[in-house]
């Protein structure tokens, strides 16, 4: 596996610098409502640079909303969110864009651009946003495609790929922006069971070989146990318990955590 390519080491080195400040992401007093439904209720939590954090909890408990807030796909009603000491909310659009540069996201439904070939899906943002030359961006994209095991699919359109392959392209696309933070939103939920392992193995490799901070919403508890440094258990818009995977999966303190794990494991 070529997962420890220079490219990824370089991607990681950015996170290394950020590791000087231990705390990378901070939510303070964040409230998010959808109509009368309060999804996040004065939530406080922080994530240290380079950590792999898994958010677990029953559906509707606000896990995905946290990722969407960080990606600025939605805005909180109250509270502040900072990334690397810089405000993400409240902040001007310009500031938002600036902070957002450090964050990448992989979606449940892949969300590749169907009108572009695989290679262009990956090079589009590095060229337009980071200002890379087309050649540089393509070299980087080919390296990443090689890493995700799809070097031969450069000229395919997304719809010609299986779900697992599309998701691996989506991961490559996110990594091409060399984010400090990678948000993974139930990235295997839409996949056929036999395709899940390939994607999870890839993410394990990335977690092992880079220092990218990962925030991961997943129902794959074994995967969560494998890659996480920290597991946050959510319920009703609050973190009700957090700790190492050994603690959360081994000896959960909270009654709700025990119930939840009893139901999913």
């Amino acid at each position, binding site marked *: 596996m070529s997962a420890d390519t220079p490219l990824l080491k370089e991607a990681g080195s950015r996170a290394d610098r950020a590791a000087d400040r231990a705390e990378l992401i901070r939510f303070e007093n964040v409230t998010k409502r959808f109509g009368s439904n309060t999804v996040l209720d004065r939530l406080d939590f922080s994530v240290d640079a380079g950590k792999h954090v898994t958010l677990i909890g029953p559906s509707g408990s606000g896990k995905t909303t946290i990722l969407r807030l960080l990606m600025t796909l939605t805005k909180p009603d109250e509270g502040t969110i900072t990334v690397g000491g810089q405000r993400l909310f409240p902040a001007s659009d310009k500031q938002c864009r600036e902070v957002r540069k450090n964050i990448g996201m992989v979606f449940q439904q892949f969300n590749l*651009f169907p009108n572009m070939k695989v290679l262009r899906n990956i090079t589009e943002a590095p060229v337009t946003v980071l200002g890379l030359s087309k050649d540089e961006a393509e070299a980087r994209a080919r390296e990443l495609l090689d890493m995700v095991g799809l070097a031969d699919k450069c000229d395919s359109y997304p719809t010609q790929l299986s779900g697992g392959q599309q998701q691996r392209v989506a991961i490559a696309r996110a990594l091409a922006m060399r984010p400090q933070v990678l948000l993974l939103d139930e990235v295997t939920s839409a996949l056929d069971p036999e395709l899940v392992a390939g994607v999870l193995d890839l993410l394990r490799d990335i977690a092992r070989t880079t220092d990218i901070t990962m925030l991961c919403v997943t129902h794959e508890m074994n995967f969560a146990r494998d890659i996480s440094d920290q597991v946050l258990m959510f319920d009703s818009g609050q973190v009700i318990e957090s700790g190492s995977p050994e603690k959360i999966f081994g000896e959960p303190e909270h009654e709700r955590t025990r119930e939840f794990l009893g139901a999913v494991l």
Partner: protein
Amino acid sequence: MNWDWNAVVDFLPHFRDGLIVTLQALALGSVVSFALGLVWALLVRTPTRWVSWPVGVFTEFVRNTPLLVQLFFLFYVLPEWGLTFSALTTGVFAIGLHYSTYTMQVYRAGIEAVPAGQWEAATALNLPLRRTWTVVILPQAVRRVVPALGNYVISMLKDTPILMVITVPEMLGEARLYAQETFRFTEPLTVIGVAFIVISYLASVLLRTLERRLVR
């Protein structure tokens, strides 16, 4: 029924002139309606109400008044304000404007049909808004709307004879002129009727080919 092939042959040079004008009006009218429709569709989506509201009212007005009235207005009223254009230019603009208020709806539906996930992926990659529109959203939206736009091209074709009333010498105008001079109606009207069918058919074949190439 007295059908005279000589009258057909006699009419053909006039028919050719009319055909060229009809095709010109159709092609240019289509271009105007496609372009203006896209402009309207984007403007009504702007968050600024000072833009979206007047555009909404104007296009609603144009869509709900008859093309013939608009044609007369543009042809007879605009010159009073010092704006004089040739009959063909006025006709092309009138048809294009009128149909742009329909194509705008088509574009809107196409834009709304692009999944929210595409916008989200563009945000996650930090693509600028303009770039998101031009390389992600519009290419996907336009692809979806080609069949619907094509139907309006055929509608426009069937509306081109209206241009006769402002003296544009398209096919029906030529046929009527010929009929008035020779008192023969059957042959010229039959010839242009067949021509309309043939053009519609060719246009739909062309569109289906385009559709097959675009839809992926």
